């Protein structure tokens, strides 16, 4: 370190070389020099204009190695201003060895969070420099030239790592780099092909416009997709993987022909990569997960190619290494997490895939993973479980014996927010009316836990708890309904239902309220007792008004319907509120059939109340079937509903479901005449 301050350039050079050879490969030595404040010293050397090029090469290589140390060193390197020097050193005309060393340093720095965006102000200068280096490949002779190829490869890798924002993707794509990358892809040098594929996938990641542009790329009569699909078949695992990633990103375009190619080429290629000894399978697993996202056909192809079995085999191998020495357990944890996430994606929509996962004992691994010390694994296991138990038959048959309830309920109270979110989301699917575990969960104090979760500061946890309450209220006995009403509290559900700009919470609070008042007078009475008629009507007015969100409107209309259908007394409150009644009626002609059907049910329920028979009128006893005439015919008739319903029936494009409902409503208005 003292020699670095020497006025003798030979001593400085020699010291830098010694440090370089000490820190390369050694984290301990990197930490040691980091503590000795090597970064400011090196930054000062690079900032001086007259520093010898050989010293610069050694100093830059030291930076490159220090960048591998991690985020802390990277942050200090960024703050020290070395990035300016590195960029100057890749400018056209710079010494080629220095240029290569600087590219290496930038390539090592860029994966770190602090520099990803911290380098923004330099992007404008860097991109043309990098493009100029990449273009060297076009002019190079067909002979492999080590140094030129290394520079071109590194420039492509740096470029790919710059693509972390959409704006940068466009900036880089607009330089015409895609054509150059394509020509490199066809040159056949594996390292260059891998780097070019990385650049192309970074440019197209989640960017539909660039994906669209890539679809149109054609080199010597061959389309981009054909060229990359050929590379996906490569025997070289890295090339195959990077090509698969490129195609995966294009899959978001949902183009029929490409999706077929993905099923025929990419999925089998990825399965093959899972089996390559010594190959890091984590990227392959992640890639499979990405590819299968929301595409039932690809999920099915993955199942048929043996992906589910292969993923579960990986879990089995890792489990067998759990207590073994000499195993990189951290890496195993990352793989397990990746496997659960990929498996979750594959089973998210396809029933056959879920069935296969269960046949291969996925539930056993998931239950055990819920007790894993790593929060990421626990959260991923919950997510995967959530998708598997979307299946009614699995929920009925395999889940009750899986032993999943106890660990899942424990995770509802986990200290990690992500775990709580995914565990509570999974719970939602266990509380459907057909789930045998619902009764066990209630016995284990589920309602108390849900009441606590509703107080969570985390909105996602709160949403999931509301959703669970909503599901729990379907087809339950009166005692449980009373317990829920008492512990969850109507006031709480009302308060959330009235929250402005929180549609995702409002939706489930209203859904829960809708179910509280469904099927039983107990719930209706509890709501009116707790809130009073005026506040109930005020809430209904608020949620069914024209500018409310569609989902909220639907829940509001069904809430009104459930109140109206069961209790004439409370139906009266709805009918007597002109504003509310008019809002409901206005929705029967809604462009959304869902809203229209909900409004028509409301009208149907209101119209279903009959005038009491004379004797009953005198004794003021409520009756639905007291006489043939509709109690609210005058009110409803005054709003011109009959004419509206008749006009709707004349509309040729009216959906069958709405038409059915319209006819049913119209029966009430036509009944006296018939």
């Amino acid at each position: 370190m003292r020699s670095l301050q020497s006025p003798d350039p030979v001593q400085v050079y020699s010291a830098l070389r010694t440090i370089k050879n000490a820190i390369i490969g050694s984290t301990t030595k990197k930490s040691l020099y980091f503590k000795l404040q090597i970064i400011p010293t090196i930054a000062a050397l690079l900032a001086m204009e007259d520093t010898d090029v050989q010293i610069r090469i050694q100093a830059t290589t030291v930076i490159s190695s220090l960048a591998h140390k991690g985020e802390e060193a990277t942050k200090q390197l960024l703050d020290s201003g070395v990035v300016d020097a590195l960029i100057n050193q890749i400018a056209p005309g710079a010494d080629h060895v220095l240029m290569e060393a600087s590219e290496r340093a930038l390539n090592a720095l860029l994966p770190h969070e602090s520099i990803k965006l911290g380098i923004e102000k330099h992007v404008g200068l860097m991109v043309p420099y990098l493009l100029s280096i990449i273009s060297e490949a076009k002019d190079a002779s067909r002979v492999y030239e080590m140094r030129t190829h290394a520079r071109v490869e590194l420039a492509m890798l740096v470029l790919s790592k710059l693509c972390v924002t959409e704006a940068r993707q466009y900036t880089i794509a607009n330089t015409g780099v895609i054509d150059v990358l394509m020509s490199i892809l066809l040159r056949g040098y594996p390292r260059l092909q891998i780097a070019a594929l990385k650049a192309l996938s970074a440019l197209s990641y989640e960017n539909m416009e660039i994906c669209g542009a890539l679809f149109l790329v054609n080199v010597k009569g061959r389309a981009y997709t054909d060229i990359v699909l050929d590379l996906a078949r490569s025997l070289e695992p890295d090339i195959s993987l990077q090509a698969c990633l490129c195609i995966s990103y294009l899959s978001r375009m949902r183009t029929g022909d490409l999706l077929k190619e993905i099923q025929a080429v990419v999925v089998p290629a990825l399965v093959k990569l899972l089996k390559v000894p010594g190959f890091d399978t984590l990227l392959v697993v992640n890639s499979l997960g990405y590819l299968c996202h929301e595409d039932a056909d690809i999920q099915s192809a993955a199942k048929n190619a043996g992906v589910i079995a292969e993923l579960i085999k990986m879990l089995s191998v890792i489990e067998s290494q759990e207590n073994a020495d000499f195993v990189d357990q951290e890496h195993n944890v990352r793989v397990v997490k990746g496997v659960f996430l990929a498996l979750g994606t594959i089973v998210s929509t396809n029933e056959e895939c879920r069935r296969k996962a269960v046949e291969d004992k996925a539930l056993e691994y998931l239950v055990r993973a819920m007790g894993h010390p790593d929060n990421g694994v626990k959260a991923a296991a919950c997510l995967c479980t959530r998708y598997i138990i979307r299946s009614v038959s699995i929920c009925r048959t395999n889940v009750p014996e899986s032993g999943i309830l106890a660990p899942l309920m424990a995770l509802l109270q986990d200290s990690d927010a992500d775990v709580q979110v995914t565990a509570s989301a999974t719970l939602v699917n266990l509380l459907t009316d057909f789930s045998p575990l619902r009764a066990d969960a209630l016995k284990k104090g589920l309602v108390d836990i849900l009441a606590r979760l509703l107080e969570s500061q985390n909105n996602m946890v709160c949403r999931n708890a509301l959703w669970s309450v909503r599901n729990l209220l379907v087809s339950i006995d009166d005692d449980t309904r009373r317990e829920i009403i008492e512990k969850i509290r109507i006031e709480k559900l009302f308060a959330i239902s009235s929250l402005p700009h929180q549609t995702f919470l409002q939706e489930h609070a209203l859904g829960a309220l809708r179910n509280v008042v469904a099927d039983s007078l107990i719930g209706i009475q509890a709501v009116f007792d707790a809130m009073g008629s005026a506040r109930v009507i005020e809430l209904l007015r608020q949620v069914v008004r024209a500018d409310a969100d569609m989902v909220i409107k639907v829940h509001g209309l069904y809430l009104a319907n459930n109140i109206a259908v069961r209790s004439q007394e409370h139906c009266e409150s709805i009918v007597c509120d002109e504003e509310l009644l008019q809002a409901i009626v206005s929705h029967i002609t809604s462009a959304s059939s869902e809203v229209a059907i909900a409004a028509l049910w409301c009208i149907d329920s209101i119209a279903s109340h009959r005038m009491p028979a004379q004797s009953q009128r005198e004794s003021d006893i409520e009756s639905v079937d007291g006489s043939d005439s509709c109690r609210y015919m005058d009110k409803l008739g005054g709003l011109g509903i009959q004419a509206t319903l008749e006009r709707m029936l004349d509309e040729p494009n009216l959906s069958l479901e709405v038409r059915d409902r319209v006819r049913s409503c119209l029966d009430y208005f036509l009944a006296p005449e018939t």
Partner: protein
Amino acid sequence: MTMSTSSSSKQNISLEEWESKMAEVPIAKSDLNQLIMNYLIIEGYKDAAEKFSEESGQHSSVDLGSIEERMQIRFAVQNGDIKTAIERVNDLNPDILDTDPRLYFHLQQQHLIELIRQGNAEEALEFAQEELAPHGEEHPELLRELEKTMALLAFDAAGTRSPLAELLDFAHRQKTANELNAALLAAHSQPREPKLPALLQLLAWTQEQLDEKANYPRITNIVSAVLEDQRPPPKDAAGAAATGGGTQRA
């Protein structure tokens, strides 16, 4: 009896037939030259590659200058001079050892072995504590190999009585050199292994498959590559050899 039946059901192909069939397969001389050039480059025979290029007119797709550096590194490992090898690798491509902890560990392990071989037990111990142990902590999957190497210290330097003598064998240096060479080749977009040995393996496998179906002129000695006729001897001679009865009758 079964052997005889099986043998008799095999197709017999004469040397003439075989050679005539072989002559029908078009094999371009340039392909063979390319195969040889590939072997010379990957194995690092720079001078031979240059001479071969001159004589055969076969142009290399690789800058032959890059072979030189790779070979110097390989020789350094083969000579047990690991420090020089590491320095040269770092000059050539500093990312190789910074991104491949297993390879870095194997080079450090080889250096430790060299210290033990030289009888520098104290230096070896210090090196293991300072360099290898922290690396092993970071990469627990390498700890087993480290433990095994450290066990060498318990035996005499000559290693003849050591159950771990294999570590002191030249073959271990060669193994480390090969691993490093493969990494350097991969870093230079070159295949990790030449194509020729793989082709010879394919030849052996194909002959094994064919052996079950036919008696044909096969290559038994890969070095001489002579086609040897494998057909059974004429029937009478075979009968005499099998029973010995004929001889008695004579």
